[in-house]
């Protein structure tokens, strides 16, 4: 099914999220053009109960450049988070997204901020693509006041209401019913927007997912379930966890589409298709075939259940950033040097954000009691010793 819309307006939406807060000074004349450019995805889509979209993706030089920059930023941010974790500035759980950046970036390119995205705990990059800033990310990871959740959420609880990003959830699979609820609200308010509920191949075996899918299909909700299949549910490979690892088919009566999740353009095409589809026909499942380079989280080396050869193989052949780099070079949109400069800028940005985040304050003790209830309850809460600290919940 070919897409009818030529997205000449989408690059401008794209440039807003990440690149806009940094003044763009370089770019040769031809490279910043928004003239439409058609690129073929390297792999075909596989469809279940629907007609797959065309492999020819409408894009532009500017969009490709923004893809590159955004993904490089995300990659750099995750690597920096890795070092911060090892330096014990980030504690607890830290789930890194490097390798999967194409999903976040491609999805954002296809939708607006009025569409909602909800995901699980591997949320740093999705938060960024929805308009979050690096400072908010690092401050939250380090538990500082300037974090997006005021330091009280942590790595797994990033939210951005004005960006339509609903988190950030620690319990596997619980975000899918929430996401279907968001889609329900969109239908209730007659919004013409959709909700993307992201989950992993591990969560795909959760019962609540199928419950929510059933209800979404019954009520015709604009709900798009996106399985980010990185082939490992923590330490368990997908063939050991799922009898049927064809996650896009698991919806049975719900149509599905399998997408090469390492190709940002394919992701963009699929999300665009899915949005149109969901607004007309109800839920659809997208399976993004992707890969994570890090282990499940920082406590997982990631090498006990897969070989280093596998990881480096994927990095060489399917890396999303390299793919866009090759496109940029082959279409002569940018030179090798310019791209390297972009990467250096991005690195600098991340370092600056980290430095700023390190200076940010820790939360005040009174912050412990804030936001338990919405303002106005006046309830008393007691500190650990039950006598010394008596606070009124604001």
């Amino acid at each position, binding site marked *: 099914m070919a897409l009818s819309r030529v997205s000449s307006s989408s690059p401008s939406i794209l440039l807003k999220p990440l690149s806009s807060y940094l003044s763009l000074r370089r770019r040769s004349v031809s490279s910043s053009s928004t003239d439409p450019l058609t690129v073929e995805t390297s792999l075909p889509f596989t469809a279940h109960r629907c007609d797959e979209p065309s492999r020819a993706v409408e894009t532009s030089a500017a969009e490709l450049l923004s893809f590159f920059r955004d993904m490089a930023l995300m990659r750099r941010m995750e690597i920096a988070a890795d070092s911060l974790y090892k330096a014990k500035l980030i504690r607890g759980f830290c789930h890194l997204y490097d390798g999967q950046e194409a999903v976040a970036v491609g999805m954002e390119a296809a939708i607006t901020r009025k569409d909602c995205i909800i995901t699980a705990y591997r949320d740093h990059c999705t938060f960024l693509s929805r308009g979050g800033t690096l400072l908010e990310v690092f401050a939250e990871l380090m538990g500082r006041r300037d974090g997006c959740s005021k330091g009280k959420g942590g790595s797994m609880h990033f939210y951005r209401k004005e960006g339509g990003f609903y988190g950030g959830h620690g319990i596997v699979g619980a975000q899918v019913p929430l996401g*279907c*609820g968001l889609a329900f609200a969109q239908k209730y308010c007659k919004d013409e927007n959709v909700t993307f509920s992201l989950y992993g191949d591990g969560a795909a075996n959760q019962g*609540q997912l199928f419950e929510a899918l059933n*209800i979404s299909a019954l009520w015709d909700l604009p709900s798009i379930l996106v399985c980010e299949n990185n082939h490992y549910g923590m330490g368990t490979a997908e063939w050991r966890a799922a009898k049927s690892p064809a996650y896009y088919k698991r919806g049975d009566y719900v149509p599905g589409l399998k997408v090469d999740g390492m190709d940002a353009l394919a992701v963009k095409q699929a999300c665009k298709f899915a949005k149109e589809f969901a607004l007309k026909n109800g839920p659809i499942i997208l399976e993004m075939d992707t890969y994570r380079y890090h282990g499940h989280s920082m406590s997982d080396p990631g090498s006990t259940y897969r070989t280093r050869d596998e990881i480096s193989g994927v990095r060489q052949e399917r890396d999303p950033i390299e793919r866009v780099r090759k496109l940029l070079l082959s279409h002569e949109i940018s030179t090798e040097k310019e791209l390297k400069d972009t990467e250096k800028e991005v690195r600098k940005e991340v370092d600056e954000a980290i430095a700023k985040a390190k200076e940010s304050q820790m939360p005040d003790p009174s912050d412990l009691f804030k936001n338990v209830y919405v303002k106005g*309850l006046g309830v008393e809460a007691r500190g650990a010793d039950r006598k010394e600290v008596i606070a009124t919940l604001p």
Partner: protein
Amino acid sequence: MATLFHPTAAFSTSHKLHIPSPISVRKGQIFVVRSDARMNNLISRGAHKSQTQRLLTNAVATKADNSSSSKTGHELLLFEALQEGLEEEMERDPRVCVMGEDVGHYGGSYKVTKGLAPKFGDLRVLDTPIAENAFTGMGIGAAMTGLRPVVEGMNMGFLLLAFNQISNNCGMLHYTSGGQFKIPIVIRGPGGVGRQLGAEHSQRLESYFQSIPGIQMVACSTPYNAKGLMKAAIRSENPVILFEHVLLYNLKERIPDEEYVLSLEEAEMVRPGEHVTILTYSRMRYHVMQAAKTLVNKGYDPEVIDIRSLKPFDLYTIGNSVKKTHRVLIVEECMRTGGIGASLTAAITENFNDYLDAPIICLSSQDVPTPYAGTLEEWTVVQPAQIVTAVEQLCQ
């Protein structure tokens, strides 16, 4: 005596509750709210409620003490009172919707949502499949965007399947998002020990939910407070769990015609007294009142308080009572271990230990699964005779 006043409220579609000059009546005392609708005088009778409450409550004439007003108001059953409250709120605010099993076309398994589906349509009164985890999660997700769903568990016990959603998402999202998301959801349903319903259908979930930070829990016991609490719960910006009781749905009472909303955090003084404070809620209120009759005949003067608000406790009302009587008896339907009574005992001991003349006695259900056999079931819950004995013991 108590008089009725009609609050001339402009219930505009902006959903702000600005009631120009309501007057609230409580058992012979009148509090006037200033016309700028600041709440300070209305509810607060002390330091605890120094914050301006967004929810203006205007409890209109309480029921028991005005036999003179038996001509005004209308009589209905408790489930009808809940339905009235729900219907009024749905009319008032288009964002209110109801989700649950058999709430729509069937009319609700306890008829609380009867007539709503034909009136408001399938998009506002939603029949869900049997998937508590999913539809509770969906209700919470919808609430994150600003809708105000009322999620019904056909029996509170079924909500155990949605425990993760209620605990992690419902209770904690406001906090972990740094205040970005509000979850104005109401989760309601019948619970408690019924008539030989068996162990799995006789659960008291208030004891399981009470630790969850960020939620409020209330239990209704009369048609009057059922309607008021339902309305208050829907208007509240916090997630509220409203516990109804299976055996109380057919209670009949005369309630005012005027619109009224009760306060979610307040306890209800059922019978003022001097000798002992009896704290109770939901169905046990009726066992206590039955015991109270016997006690009065024996010369005791118990003060009976229906705590209504299970989380947070109305320690103000309770404290005043303890300071007056110096003896406390808690009668609840929760199990002995980890129930509401256990928490209440701890709260009272911490706060009011100096005022107590005797240790607190807490009468709860036995720590057993509720058996099917009628006699056994009777022995698991607290009976009036046991209450009488406990009071006599306390007052020695």
